[in-house]
């Protein structure tokens, strides 16, 4: 064999410009929730088939003119190879779940947060990855206009409006008052600030969840859209 030293050796490859480290494994999928926008008006059905009864109709927009969202709780593929998504719905009765064709939804987003509102202790607690990151006292619905209990989600965020009553920021949720069904824009429960902080904590609202303005501002920095909301 001719020795490579008989002529200058071929240059070794230079150090690569990219420092590519070890493969990056995902953290455990615990505490993850996926949500998706509704991109096509669609009937949500009681089972993943076009012949199942309709449980609700979904539009692409909320009454606040933001994208309508649903939580994606599960999925299945039907005999024709179509994917169906099991979704939590922003409709009455509260806690309704249905199936929509995956094609009616947009891209999935994931959140690791969960907001819990305790109607007995009058607190709102935010968890991220299972760890508590926020807690504040809240005002909730009076006995004649109770804040509904159940599993919901955060679906939009309003700001820059002129209404001291709602404070600086208002989050829309998928929860609806079961009694104020003729409230303008559907009677959805919001989570917002207040111009009456002295009333908190207390049972003081029409069903909304009120927070002191500094608290809602602090929450707003940590609360992504699509976060699941438990009211108990």
């Amino acid at each position, binding site marked *: 064999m001719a020795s490579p030293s008989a002529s200058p050796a071929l240059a070794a*490859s*230079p*150090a*690569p*410009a*990219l*420092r*590519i*480290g070890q*493969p*990056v*494994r*995902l953290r455990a*999928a615990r505490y993850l929730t*996926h949500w998706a926008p509704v*991109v*096509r008006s669609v009937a949500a059905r009681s089972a993943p088939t076009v012949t199942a009864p309709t449980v609700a109709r979904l539009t692409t927009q909320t*009454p*606040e*003119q*933001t*994208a309508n969202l649903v939580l994606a709780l599960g*999925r299945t*593929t039907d005999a024709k*190879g*179509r*994917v169906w998504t099991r979704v939590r719905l922003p409709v009455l009765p509260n806690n309704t779940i249905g199936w929509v*064709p*995956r*094609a*009616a939804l*947009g*891209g*999935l*987003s994931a959140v690791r947060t969960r907001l819990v509102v305790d109607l007995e202790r009058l607190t709102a607690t935010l968890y991220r990855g299972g760890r508590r990151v926020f807690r504040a006292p809240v005002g909730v*619905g009076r006995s004649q*206009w109770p804040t509904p209990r159940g599993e919901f989600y955060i*679906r*939009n*965020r*309003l*700001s820059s*409006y002129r*209404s001291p009553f*709602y404070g600086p920021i*208002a989050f*829309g949720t998928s929860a609806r008052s079961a009694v*104020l069904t003729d*409230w*303008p*824009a559907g*009677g*959805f*429960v*919001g989570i*917002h600030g207040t111009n009456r902080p002295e009333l908190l904590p207390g049972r003081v*609202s*029409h*069903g*909304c969840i009120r927070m002191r303005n500094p608290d809602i501002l602090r929450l707003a920095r940590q609360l992504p859209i699509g976060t699941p909301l438990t009211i108990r």
Partner: protein
Amino acid sequence: MIPQLPAGVDVTLDQLDRDGALREAGSRLPRGRFLGLAAGAAVAFGGLASPARGVTKGDVAILNYALSLEYLQSAFYTETERVAAVKGQAARAARVVGAVERAHVIAFRNLLGRKAIKRPLFDFRGTTEDQQAFLKTAVAFEDLAVAAYKGQAHLIESDAVLAAAVSIHSVEARHAAWVRHLFGIRPAANAFDEGKPRAEIERIVQSTSFVVARSRTRGRGGPRFTG
């Protein structure tokens, strides 16, 4: 006796598109938005001190183009793993390949620093949520990545960037073979793999409508919640 793998079968994103499964919602993003971002970002930060010192303008554009494809792939496998609808060997491939694509993304972002393009938003249209759709799409993505890296190799100016690119290129080819095998088609269809120019790759990616605009979740109107 293992059944013979079909010879010379190619699954392309174009083909997926023709199946109609992916296009139901139509294109929701103006053309040029996805990869066009690369050039925009590079220009916008062109005057700033860059961690990518010594990398030419041309190489920055190529690196950002590669990063856009790595974003696409890593998001695809990450979502597949998190949704957890894909099972068995395919799930294992999603886990292993996804971990590698995420390492690639991190390396590109570290090198490009502020010149790195932003991560777009994706809608994989159910392909991360169904066994067969996942495999088919993974095959298309990996073959596409191989063709894309190959199409750039001779255009790269810096030896250090070239050394990095070729070391990724062959890994993408390993992935392509792996997912093709899982899908039940021949892992190496031809004796030679042809590259594809950037314009063609971008056209194919855009035809999938996998890259979407962020949905509007913030409003400015007055709330009408129950108060």
